[in-house]
């Protein structure tokens, strides 16, 4: 009986470990280029259009961001890895004049309120960042985790997708070629 329990323990720990490790291994942190910008969700594809409403009832569409790179963060206000990532992004934003690229924070928990989004932006983001909530966009972009990030170039082509917590050191290699 003890052996059974021990085996179950080991199997469960192994499964947890493999699942966790595979996150790092299969993480789609890619920056490849493609020549055909077909619409899709892979790096090199033209990103699908979206239409969102911000907390101040402003309409936000993909075309708003044409001409500058766009960093999209799928998150929720309580997601701590996302908060740290946003602070790192804000630091990078400041160091590049605060106007070199756009940021869209896309909240995906429908129980959260507009005031929470605005508070979050004040605490972790910057005034000129866009915030909105739209569960459908998260679904259309196949978001599976909070902290999923997309980067579009100035033409709306997807250049980077990532699900790991955003470290400061990883922002420059992604954004600087697009600025």
């Amino acid at each position, binding site marked *: *009986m*003890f052996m*059974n*329990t021990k085996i*179950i*323990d080991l199997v*469960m720990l192994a499964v*947890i*470990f493999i*699942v*966790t*490790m*595979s*996150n*790092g291994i299969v*993480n789609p942190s890619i920056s490849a280029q493609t020549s055909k910008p077909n619409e899709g969700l892979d790096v090199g594809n033209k990103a699908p259009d979206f239409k969102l409403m911000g907390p101040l009832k402003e309409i936000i569409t993909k075309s708003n961001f044409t001409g500058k790179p766009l960093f999209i963060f799928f998150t*929720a206000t*309580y*997601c*701590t*890895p*996302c*908060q*740290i990532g946003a602070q790192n992004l804000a630091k990078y934003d400041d160091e590049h004049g605060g106007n070199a690229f756009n940021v869209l924070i896309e909240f*995906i*928990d429908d*129980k959260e309120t507009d005031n929470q989004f605005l508070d979050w932006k004040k605490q972790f983001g910057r005034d000129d960042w866009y915030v909105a909530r739209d*569960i459908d966009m*998260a679904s259309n972009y196949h*978001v*599976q*985790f*909070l*902290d999923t990030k997309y980067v579009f170039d100035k033409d709306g082509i997807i250049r980077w997708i990532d*699900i*790991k*917590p955003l*470290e400061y050191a990883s922002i420059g290699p992604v954004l600087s070629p697009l600025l």
Partner: protein
Amino acid sequence: MRLIEAIKDKPILAATLAIGMFFVIPIIQSFNTSLAFEIWFRDLYQKPLNSVLYIAFSILFGMFITVYLHSRSSCIDCKTGKAKSGVAGTVLGFMIGVCPACFSFIGFLIPLTASIFLTTLAPIFLLASIAIILYSIFRVGGFKSISVNRELES
């Protein structure tokens, strides 16, 4: 109580297991990101209810394994084979205890909306894990008085 006796017998083991369980999430996560411990401590600070429950869960986990090992070696009447529920409680607390939607354990297995839902219920799952571990300690005889066990042994 056998639980107390077990902890007195192996205090370092109990403490190591409790501390190990407490830090197991950031340790595993550190393979994936250098921000693992920063995320962990911020989570503890921002979610005090979850933090208190997770600390209690970790301490009970340390106690459970200690009394389980103690029972195997020195208790003839203890039901050491009935410890599977403790493993279930451990896995439940470990995987759903903090933020399933933020971390990757559950996110790979279920849709985002479901993991967000589970995140909101994390304190309930932690309470369930604590209850399961307490039940497992009971099953392995941890709450029995030492005199009863000694009478049985003699």
